[in-house]
């Protein structure tokens, strides 16, 4: 298994290079050259050239690329073309926001999904089971941006409620305002993921509960709860991990919608705006960072899967 892991790990830098290169080239062949934008209204050809030189855009693309790779390797991720702020600083400022969104979404999805999945499986065909499954099907179908829109519209219409203003407040500074800002939207967003997880947990649990070794455990006289938690649940972990990994990976793009709708300044919004204004250093960094996260998570997931389920063998 370790050989497999090493082989996969070796691929990662390659993928990083490929993605970095692809983004780099794509962004530079796109129309919407930042020099033209920055050149402003009094743009003359000479001035635009000056700006291109200042931004290093006039050198051949591959030279720019190697310059950039060197910078990245030494930890210099560049400065935003527009405001001049350090990309790393801006990202660091926004990271806690996105991180908090991701953690809370995971927490809610995980808790709700797993709990109801187990309950539903164990109390099969009970009213609870039907109720949860019914809700799950609907919950999965309603688009998250519709739910978020409703989240804004309904409290406003009924109670004139508005989300707290004044920008982001860290959790440690003011927990109540922070939670007021983050809990409603993440709760809403986590429903979809929770439903997916619930169905998965339920079906896997059902299969496992019927299996031989569980019956053996029951025959041995183990307490039912021990059976469920220790034996059955362990086997539902792999697919759960898959879903959770996927949720984390999509938390970034899901976060874009949430951040734009709720006006929260996280990485998603930052990235979205940067692509529009062709802020190349920011976009490059964000693409690389996102891709790396996805790739690493995939690897982790595969590895942990193998770890949890000893029956699996990789070629």
């Amino acid at each position: 298994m370790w050989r497999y892991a090493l082989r996969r790990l070796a691929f990662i830098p390659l993928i990083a290079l490929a993605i970095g290169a692809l983004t780099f080239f794509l962004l530079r062949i796109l129309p919407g050259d930042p020099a033209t934008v920055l050149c402003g209204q009094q743009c003359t050809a000479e001035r635009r050239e000056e700006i291109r030189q200042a931004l290093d855009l006039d050198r051949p693309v591959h030279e720019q690329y190697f310059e950039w790779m060197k910078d990245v390797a030494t930890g210099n991720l560049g400065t935003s073309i527009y405001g001049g702020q350090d990309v790393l600083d801006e990202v660091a400022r926004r990271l806690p926001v996105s991180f908090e969104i991701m953690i809370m979404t995971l927490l809610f999805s995980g808790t709700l999904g797993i709990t109801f999945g187990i309950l539903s499986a164990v109390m099969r065909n009970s009213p609870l089971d039907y109720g949860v499954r019914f809700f799950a099907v609907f919950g999965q179908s309603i688009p998250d941006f519709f739910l978020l829109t409703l989240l804004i519209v309904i409290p406003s219409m009924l109670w004139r409620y508005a989300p707290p203003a004044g920008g982001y407040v860290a959790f440690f500074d003011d927990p109540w305002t922070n939670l007021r800002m983050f809990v409603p939207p993440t709760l809403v967003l986590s429903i979809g993921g929770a439903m997916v997880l619930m169905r998965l947990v339920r079906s896997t649990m059902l299969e496992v509960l019927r299996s031989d070794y569980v019956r053996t455990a029951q025959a041995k006289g183990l307490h039912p709860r021990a059976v469920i938690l220790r034996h059955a649940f362990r086997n539902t972990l792999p697919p759960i991990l898959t879903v959770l990994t996927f949720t984390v990976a999509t938390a970034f793009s899901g976060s874009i919608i949430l951040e734009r709708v709720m006006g929260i300044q996280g990485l998603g919004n930052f990235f979205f705006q940067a692509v529009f204004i062709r802020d190349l250093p920011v976009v490059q960094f964000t693409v690389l960072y996102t891709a790396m996260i996805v790739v690493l998570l995939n690897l982790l997931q595969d590895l942990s899967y193998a770890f949890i389920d000893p029956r699996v063998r990789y070629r």
Partner: protein
Amino acid sequence: MARVWDDTLRQRISRRRVLAGSAALGAATLVACNSGGGGGSPTGEPVAEGTPTKGGIIRLRQPGNTGFPSLSPFGPTALVSTLVFGFTAYDHLWYVPIDTGDTEKMLAAELEIVDEQGLQVNATLQETFFHDKPPASGRQVLASDVKASWEAFRDDPFGLGREWLRDIVESLEAPEDRLFVIKQKRPWAWMFGQSGAGSPASSSVLPAETIDGTQFDLANDVLGSGRFLLESHRGGANLKLRAFPRWRVAGEPYLGGVDLVLIPDYSSAEAQFAAGEIDQLDFQNKLQADQMQDRLGDDMYVRTELSRAYNCLMVKQVPPFDNPLVRKALRLAINREEMIQLVERDAAGGVNCGIVPPAQALYALPEDDADMAEYLRYDPEEARSLLEQASFPLDDEFPLLISSPSEELADRAQVLKDQLSRVGIKVRIEAQDLLSVWVPRVLIQADYTLTLFTHLAYEDPYLPLSFYTTFSPIGPRDEAKGRNSMLFYDQEIDDAVDATALEFDLDARIDKVKAAQRLIMQKEGPMINIYSGVSFTGRRNWLKGVVTGRGSFGLFSGRTWIDTSLRGS
């Protein structure tokens, strides 16, 4: 349709004439010193709301999603932050209010036009001081500072509206500590207005040593000589400004400071206004203003202000649009009333716009003027027959470019599209991202056929007029014909507009501007102006002394105050 606004405007104009009658206006001097020495205190609505209490801090909404990326008045991100600090942290030589048209002296104690033609202007500075921050550390403001600042604005490649500094000004000199000399290449009657040196965005006075950015972090701090100094901010958001103790007008500003609170979401802003957390709110339309007024009653008041910006349709002069009949048909096809009602949600939400926007009340033609009435006329039948006469290709679909994101603009485009379709012109809307596509492609490279946008014209009619000339500020330069984004070249219009810049007498200049407008209308100028929006601003009853109709100049005039007995703090 008579509007409340027209009445207010008429009052203002008549007041100005009374005041102007007492001043000497001639070719040699340009300055009307109605307010008597000193300067900086604007005339306007007389305010009788009690004795001002000083020291209250006004809390305003800072819109947008993030703080200002940079506080520097230079560079690509300068415009927004400059508009905030231009009125508060920085000082200027003079200011021309839109309602009187007369130059009011501020930092310049004396203004003298030295020669017959008006090519050289000498400004003598008052004794004023910079804020007490290094490296200026409270020293006097010198003419050399003004020179360095204005040259920096002139040379800023990202600066908008710097035509006067770049094309008309020959040199800026500081022969003495407090004597600043402007020499122009040609006489320019618009010099004192916002398209000249009156714009807060390009005439702020900074300490010379801070300009190159090595001794002072322009991106994160502000050092000027204005009424307020910047005390703190968090990442360009939640700025706190405090009254400058050594401000050149003793006893002012009445306010103790300005707090800008970042509130990205509009409904949060409404909630904060209702709760008294912010003192002023710009409503999105009249409906919302009315609702809030119902809710708060006497605890607030609403002021309407006619925007100096106007919505217009630029039509590139390529076939089939280079035919005056087609241009006339387009003009007749636009139903301004319907558009105002649909987009602003209320007939009072907009005012019809001619060649010069209605906010420039001294210069704009009134709606009952014959030429103006014709310009505003809505006649889809005649439009259709004109198109037939011109053999307009009714099967073709033309792109209508707009910038995004802007919901109002998208709505306007939809209404326009429907109105044009009623006379047979097919149009498809294409939204382009403002900064990365629309500005470079449409504004700079003039790559469009039809484009709808909102144009901010400040206080001078010169800018709106210049769009119809061969010295337009936008568009590609043609070696032989000149510069016009719409490829519209007309010598007569050029001459008429140029004549306005040579006329130093205000009344005569007003006549020439009106004459130029009539000429443009007769020739079916290809930029068709639709309407100007009316903004509805709500203020809590403890916010007093604001002069309406002067935008931020009215808010930060120094005489605004918070009645702390009403607000409690």
